[in-house]
């Protein structure tokens, strides 16, 4: 015996459900249709590639025979700043302009929206960050090959892929802070503080604190990627720590966005 539990639905035109894919397409349109994206990414390339290759060129013919992979570190450290700014702006520019209300009216599934923003930004930062570190390392090897200690395959992988991953993670951290603070200048200030202060503070603190702060400071994480870091945990290990930290802040951002009034 069959019982029809559900009556036939009224003949409504089928409306496709809005999904994460829709939000991904939309966020991709958003990020490539504003000038600030272009300028921050150009700045990242100019800093990582420009300063790195400048250092390599300077060393040409004057090498003391040491490892030259570390020449890229200075550019990499300052090159994080535009990435962090872009990460923050992906969210805070919507709050600053009021666009967030338009967006959430068109797509009220806030978790999916933030997931889309995070995925689009992370992918973009990872691909372009890896390209920047990769080109810098490649350029260094072309310029200085045989003049110092050439990097091993494992070191190149850590610097290039790890560098791209680091940039994407620190940018995602910034995106999360931007979501929590909803204010461009505030979030960028916090991120600059997080990037620079631990390293500076470590110099003035007693040694047991000093160790911890120094090891886990973003500057030391960056240095570790270029084969130059302090601590025993290593480049990949520090990346893992950064990934965990980012996951925590991102989770807080999801919770805040879901609960808060816009």
């Amino acid at each position, binding site marked *: 015996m069959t019982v029809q539990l559900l009556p036939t639905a009224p003949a409504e035109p089928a409306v496709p459900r809005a999904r994460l894919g829709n939000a991904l397409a*939309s966020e991709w*349109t958003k990020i490539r249709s504003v000038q600030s994206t272009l300028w921050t990414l150009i700045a990242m390339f100019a800093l990582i590639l420009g300063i790195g290759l400048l250092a390599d060129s300077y060393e040409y013919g004057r090498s003391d025979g040491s490892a030259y992979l570390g020449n890229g570190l200075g550019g990499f450290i300052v090159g994080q700043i535009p990435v962090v700014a872009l990460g923050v702006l992906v969210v805070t520019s919507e709050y600053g302009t009021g666009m967030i209300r338009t967006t959430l009216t068109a797509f009220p599934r806030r978790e999916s929206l933030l997931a889309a923003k995070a995925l689009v930004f992370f992918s973009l930062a990872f691909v372009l960050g890896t390209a920047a570190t990769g080109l810098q390392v490649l350029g260094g090897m072309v310029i200085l090959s045989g003049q110092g200690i050439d990097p091993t395959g494992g070191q190149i992988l850590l610097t290039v892929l790890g560098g791209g991953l680091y940039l994407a993670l620190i940018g995602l951290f910034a995106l999360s802070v931007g979501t929590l603070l909803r204010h461009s200048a505030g979030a960028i200030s916090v991120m600059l503080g997080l990037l620079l202060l631990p390293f500076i503070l470590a110099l003035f603190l007693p040694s047991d604190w000093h160790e911890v702060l120094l090891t886990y400071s973003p500057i030391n994480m960056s240095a570790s990627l270029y084969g130059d870091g302090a601590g025993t945990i290593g480049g990949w290990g520090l990346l893992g720590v950064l990934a965990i930290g980012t996951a925590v802040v991102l989770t807080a951002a999801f919770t805040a966005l879901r609960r808060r009034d816009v």
Partner: protein
Amino acid sequence: MIEAHGLTKKYGEKTAVDDLSFTVRPGQVTGFLGPNGSGKSTTMRLVLGLDSPTSGTVTVDGLPFRRLPNAPRTVGALLDAKAVHGGRSAYSHLLCLAQLAGLPRRRVDEVLALVGLSEVAHRRSGGFSLGMGQRLGIAAALLGDPKVLMFDEPVNGLDPEGIHWVRQLMRDLAAEGRTVFVSSHLMSEMAVTADHLIVIGRGRLLADLSTRAFIDRHAAGFARVRTADGTDPDGADPDGRRELLAGVLRKAGGEVTVEADGALRVGGLPLARISDLAWEEKVRLYELSPHQASLEEAYMQLTHGSVEYRSVRNEPADDEPVGVAA
């Protein structure tokens, strides 16, 4: 259809929306009236799920906004015309919204043409005038061809041609059977646009009635009557003809006062009846003209009253009609 039940929103100690219940029906333009700061925008944000109510519920098409399967296909909203990223072109702005609803690019071109922005589609929206921004916001609201449309102060900053266009658009949308919910702080605007009015003050419901009923109730007309003998600039009535007519009109149920220039202000009687009574008394008339009391005045009295006497909020209909002399 928008349905609110006991909607309340508190920000700390301040109650922005207070136990608001109303229904916005399809097929008509519903005006949402209230002075600045009365809670109109907060209510609209609650409807759109941007803010969560402290208590109460509000649904669109039977669902809370945030549970709609594809919001832009059900509800289109214009909250704030400046809520766009100024660095993005009108086309890109609409494209990213269209993609959220899975709408094709073709639809972006359609709405741009509909609001008359095709020619500036690829210019940065930051350079748009307020009127162009308003058109862009309306284009965004129309993207998903929604059944429910919400506009917060849509004629703000528009030139007369633009205002005419928006009014016509809202009426056309309602005529197509859609639910159109428009907020305004201007009674005069709503009087010519809205079929139904929901009036709030200090977050509370003051009136929920058809525009026609509001006008009938709150802005009843009166007649100005000038007798042949009462026309002196000092308002003198040497033969007592004006007093005679005033007495007859009062007896017939009219509400009569003498104005400063000697004319009679008569409420509650049709013009033809006044003319007949004057004829019977052989009083010659130099003027018999119809007048409408200002709706704006009626509306101000209604909303002002709510601020000072909150306990009478449920009886706006019993207010003395403004403009009719007692």
